[in-house]
């Protein structure tokens, strides 16, 4: 609500000032992106009109990130703050509060279809939010700010390229609201990046089509691929839920191993944001060979195989296909 209002206020200010604010013309838009994938989208839309600071960088896990005072200062001086929403960034509320930022905080999943985590039972939140009005160290917000609801909604919407287009549209809208003079550029950039996303999606669909239907069940460490599954028809199972915050219990793992045997999973993968140990253990118990590393909630660093969103999605589908067909 307040976000919408803030955004509306910014748009209002722009329309009442037909002359472009000198700030936008004189210097770049200061954009804060909560994590690396959003930063990449923002770079594609903003081009050289924006300066982007990323809070949770390459290979970082935004689910459990603990914001620092310097992050609050960064957010405090931003013109636009881009976040995923759907409680992906567990730190967001306390960071925004501490920053006292006047910038619009734009949830890029707004307007999209939200998947609920229908995952297996057992992914109960640990009793961590039960914290008398005080943040659990840096890990939880307290009851004072209203109760922290652990989302059942799956926040990993970017795992569908279709949704990535929504992120891009929302970014373009946010940039246009903050910098009307650059709006045509942002729209044009979004349009051409959108074409690359369309091509990417076609590639993913073609790759999935080459995988026999009875081999389309695979294992990763946490439930990060619900949207990929929903959009492209590969079934992902994982010992951890939609957040990496609570660890998988022994019974979760046992249930998963049983399910792997029943569903005859074709391949198992480690993820760049999580400890590979649990996956290695499940692999050895089920006789599956670890088929490589998938990028789930963060890009690789710039020398890695997933330095951009396009590279990440290509790397993931290539790795998945290679492991299944090679098995």
């Amino acid at each position, binding site marked *: 609500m307040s976000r919408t209002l803030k955004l509306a206020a910014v748009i209002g200010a722009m329309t009442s000032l037909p002359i472009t604010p000198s700030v936008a013309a004189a210097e770049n838009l200061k954009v804060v992106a909560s994590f690396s994938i959003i930063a990449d989208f923002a770079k594609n839309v903003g081009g050289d009109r924006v300066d982007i600071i990323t809070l949770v960088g390459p290979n970082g896990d935004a689910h*459990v990130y603990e914001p620092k005072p310097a992050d609050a200062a960064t957010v405090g001086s931003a013109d636009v703050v881009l976040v995923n929403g759907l409680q992906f960034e567990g730190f967001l509320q306390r960071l925004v509060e501490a920053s006292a930022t006047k910038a619009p905080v734009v949830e890029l999943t707004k307007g999209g279809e939200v998947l609920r985590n229908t995952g297996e039972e057992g992914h109960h939140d640990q009793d961590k939010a*039960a914290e*008398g*009005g*005080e943040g659990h*160290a*840096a890990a939880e917000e307290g009851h004072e700010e209203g109760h922290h*609801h652990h989302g059942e909604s799956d926040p990993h919407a970017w795992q569908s390229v279709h949704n990535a287009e929504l992120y891009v549209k929302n970014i373009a809208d946010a940039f246009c609201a903050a910098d009307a003079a650059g709006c045509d550029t942002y729209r044009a950039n979004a349009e051409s990046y959108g074409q690359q996303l369309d091509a990417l999606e076609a590639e993913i669909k073609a790759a999935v089509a080459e995988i026999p239907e009875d081999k389309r069940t695979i294992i990763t460490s946490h439930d990060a691929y619900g949207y990929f599954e929903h959009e492209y028809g590969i079934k992902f199972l994982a010992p951890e839920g939609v957040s990496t915050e609570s660890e998988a219990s022994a019974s979760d793992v046992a249930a998963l191993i049983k399910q792997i045997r029943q569903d005859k999973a074709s391949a198992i993968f480690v993820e760049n944001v999580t400890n590979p140990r649990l996956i290695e253990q499940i692999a050895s118990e089920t006789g599956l060979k670890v088929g490589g590393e998938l990028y789930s909630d963060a890009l690789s660093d710039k020398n890695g195989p997933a330095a951009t969103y396009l590279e990440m999605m290509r790397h993931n589908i290539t790795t998945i296909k290679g492991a299944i067909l090679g098995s």
Partner: protein
Amino acid sequence: MRTNWASATAIALLLSLSTSAAHAEEVTAWRLFISDHADPKVTVIDAVDGGKLDTFQIKGPASLHRSESGRTVFAVQGSAGVVTGIASGISFEDHGEHGDIDVEAPKLAGVEIAGEKPSHFVDHDGDFAVFFDGEGVARIISEKAVLEGKSDFRELKTDAPQHGVAVAYGSHVLLSEPNREKPDELPVGIRVADKAGAQVGGIHACPDLHGEASSGNILAFACATGLLVVTHGDGSPAIRHLPYSDSLPDGKTTTLIGGRGLQYFLGNYGADKVVLIDPTIESDAFRLISLPTRRVHFAVDPVRAKFAYVFTEDGQLHQLDVVKGEIASSLKLTGPYSMDGHWNDPRPRIAVAGDRIVVTDPLQGVLHLVDATSFQKTGDIAVEGKPFNIVSVGGSGQTHEGE
């Protein structure tokens, strides 16, 4: 008739179930636990209405510690050689879509751990470690055991008596390493012990070790040379040394507290300064903040992550903006409390209870109440004797009838 009546009840019940969230009562409860500088007692005050809830007689004057969960308060009685567990009476349970609060009377938990000169108390994820300086022994007990009234502690011995510290860190224990050449001086490092008590790796040097705190997933010890920074490594704790930056004047941190909501550490550094520390960055990890006079006590605000508070000997409470790294406001609360004299003389201590900052004024026998949002004094509460150490426990949650 009877059938109709029954079905009407059933409908009423269904209605009440379906709207239970709306009908559940939102309850806020905050309690202050206050020890006396001279008398062996802990006074419990309802921070919401200012009324006294109870007074517990213990064996000696105590320093107080609350657990991370807030369910337990520990009274460490150094001179009496005992540590007493108190159940705060307030607990929270998370139900995903809402949080429940349970409020009962505070009571002595029935757990006492005796030993020579208990000093530092550390809670890490619900495991409490108390270090007994006179024996060089750590005694570790879980919060669960304390709340069940069971004195089921385990013991780890170091090589010598020392003013030490221990942390139960998952399946490992971190123990201070005594100074062998000069047994009266502070410990010289940290040793890691596994579940069986066997040493893992070498000693992590930390000369003049004094001060320990956690913030989020980072634990730190203060040393004469910098901080030891502990994180979860692959299978055992990962420990690295973060040296004080060259830009700092000569000095060291001997008291450390950890940010909540934001990840940072706040330490003393010289008598009239504090240092803000972000151990995750390479350069500018330390930001020094000068105070108008010498520092008496400091505390972080667990609710408004942006603020910490420092009390100085001129009787002022300062609101420290940890984002900007500067004092945002100052408020005169008490008469002067000189830092000349013994370190443990009666001087003010700070606790934050929801929207209130509470400062003890031992020589006047009162607690000063400051509104955390306006940073203005809103009242005080008289407490018999010399109210000294203080901790607060509480928060808001829902209660449901019939549970």
